[in-house]
């Protein structure tokens, strides 16, 4: 028996952007493996290339060097038909289709398959809508009529529409009130448990990091400097880790680590 294949494997990745003809290196020989069933948080400074890393996993950016493999296939092949059942993405600003209603947005990936009857697709979308904590009465609203937090939830519902095994989240709790953020964490945890979901999220929210993640990867100096359990990362000796986790906010949030909350 060989080892189970990692959900995401990033091998010697280089991400390079050209600004006014001058190449800027974002990632340099970056390695990262995400195992099946992990809840991985990616943390790092602003402009450190966290979102670019997510976009590389989605195949939205092309590696300058190195490879990105998602579920055993190159990430560049993700954007083909049926992608929504392999990976779900929650964009930072929702990226809802503004010409569709909330329900049509959520039902979109499933409806595009064109096989399942409209009634079933609608019911599935309604379940998803309420699953993320929205009321059924919002189903026919347009995205322009929603608040920022609601947009985020609808976007999450759409990312989950096909129950993909891999979920990528970009700043999932930014802009949510504390209550909604807690509900979001609870939902993610139960989905992770029930559907064996693998989650990769970029976040600055220390509470979310300590409450949810089974692993934390710190992106700094164009590499992943450490990829370990939250407690091990906090104890890791690196200037960024020190500033990020052991500042005033970090110490308050770490109270969540004792006693450990998750049955991993």
């Amino acid at each position, binding site marked *: 028996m060989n080892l189970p294949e990692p959900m995401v494997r990033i091998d010697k990745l280089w991400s390079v952007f050209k600004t006014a003809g001058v190449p800027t290196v974002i990632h340099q020989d970056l390695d990262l493996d995400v195992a099946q069933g992990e809840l991985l948080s990616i943390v790092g400074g602003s402009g450190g290339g966290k979102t670019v890393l997510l976009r590389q996993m989605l195949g939205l950016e092309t590696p300058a060097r190195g490879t990105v493999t998602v579920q055993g296939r190159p990430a560049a092949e993700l954007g083909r038909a*049926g992608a929504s*059942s392999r990976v779900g993405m929650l964009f930072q600003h929702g990226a809802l*289709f*503004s*010409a569709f209603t909330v329900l049509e947005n959520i039902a979109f990936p*499933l409806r595009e*398959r064109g*096989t*399942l009857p409209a009634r*079933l697709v*609608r*019911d*599935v979308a*309604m*379940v*998803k*809508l*309420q*699953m993320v904590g929205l009321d*059924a*009465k919002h*189903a*026919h609203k*347009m*995205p*322009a009529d929603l608040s920022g937090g609601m947009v985020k939830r609808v976007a999450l519902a759409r990312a*989950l*529409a*096909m*129950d993909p095994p891999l979920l990528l989240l970009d700043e999932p709790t930014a802009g949510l009130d504390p209550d909604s953020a807690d509900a979001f964490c609870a939902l993610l945890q*139960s989905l992770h*448990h*029930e*559907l*064996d979901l693998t989650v990769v999220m970029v976040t600055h929210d220390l509470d979310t990091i300590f409450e949810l993640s089974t692993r934390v990867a710190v992106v700094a100096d164009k590499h992943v400097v450490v990829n370990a359990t939250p407690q091990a990362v906090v104890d890791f000796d690196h200037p960024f880790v020190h500033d990020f986790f052991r500042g005033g906010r970090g110490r308050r949030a770490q109270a969540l680590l004792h006693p450990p909350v998750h049955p991993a």
Partner: protein
Amino acid sequence: MRTLFTLYCRPVEDTQPGLSTTHGPEGLRVALHGRWTADALSVPQVWARVQQALPPVSEARAGQTPVAWDVSAVQRLDHTGAQVLWDAWGRHWPTTLHAEPVQKAVLERVARFSVPMPQAERPNLHTVFLALGRRVSRVGYHAAGAVRLVGQLLLDMVQLLRHPLHGPWRDVSSHLYRIGATALPITALVGFLIGVVLAYLMSKQLRQFGADSFIVNILGLALIRELGPVLAAILVAGRSGSAITAQIGVMRVTEELDAMRVMGIPKGFRLVMPRTLAMAVAMPLVTVWTTLAAMLGGMLAADLAMGLTPAYFFTALPKTVNIANLWLAVGKSCVFGVLIALIACYYGLRVKPDTQSLGEGTTASVVSSITMVILVDALFAVIFKSVGV
């Protein structure tokens, strides 16, 4: 080759969703297997098979035969699969259900959230009546908006005349370049071709009457007075009018307009006025340029088709076409420019923050500015019917 092999020889049967029914002593027993996921179920053949197999089982339920459901062998049950089952059960829990706790949790969530669909608002007689009224009052709303925009432009112009050094001149010059200079190649090409076509068509007709030399009158009057300004205006409306609407519309979508307002920067003075000024200056210049290109085309075609030399053309033109026509054309195109800029800005500022509204606004802007150009041109023709002809 190897990938193909693995692709086709994968044990497909194991992962496809399916069910088997057995009649036992205590009634019907339905065992589910495979992957009951959205991805697997939305394969047409699979869905057809599942649909065929499920209804008889549901009927047995309705006929009060006890049915025992066994879900525990299912490899993966997601919310779509659970919804299919829940619907098959007639949205009630079956009397006997074997399921893993994890599967039960998914089923319970679907059961909890399967609610009747909230009705979307259907149009009735009252709402149709209200919609009609809204459409009628929108005409007045547009008129008021147009008046407000023109009034604001006049106030901004007064402010500019008072403090000419504080004007947004950099914006004006950049718009001049974008509206005027970058439009030169396309307007020259279109003008030249129209001139050639017109001269060829006319030469055929004029030769029948032996009135070859009148080609100068026809080309001169038609191109300078009418075709030059209208052609240039239509091209610029399509090119720059749509660009202005889209640009301002995107500024609305990205909340840049709100940011300007919060910083106390008047959008009339910084957005509408520079564009209108640039258009008012660039449009006459583009018109003269288009007319020149068209005359050149006409002159060449006349030389080729009728042997009318350019030298004759140049001497005959000032005698046959009154210079007043040129001034009329320049004045007219200045008005066209202002109208195109104002209409484009008006629709741009009305865009709502969604993609559909942006598209509609751009279309409406181009269509109304071209219509307006032709209407105003007709008005000019009526008012100045005794000038220059």
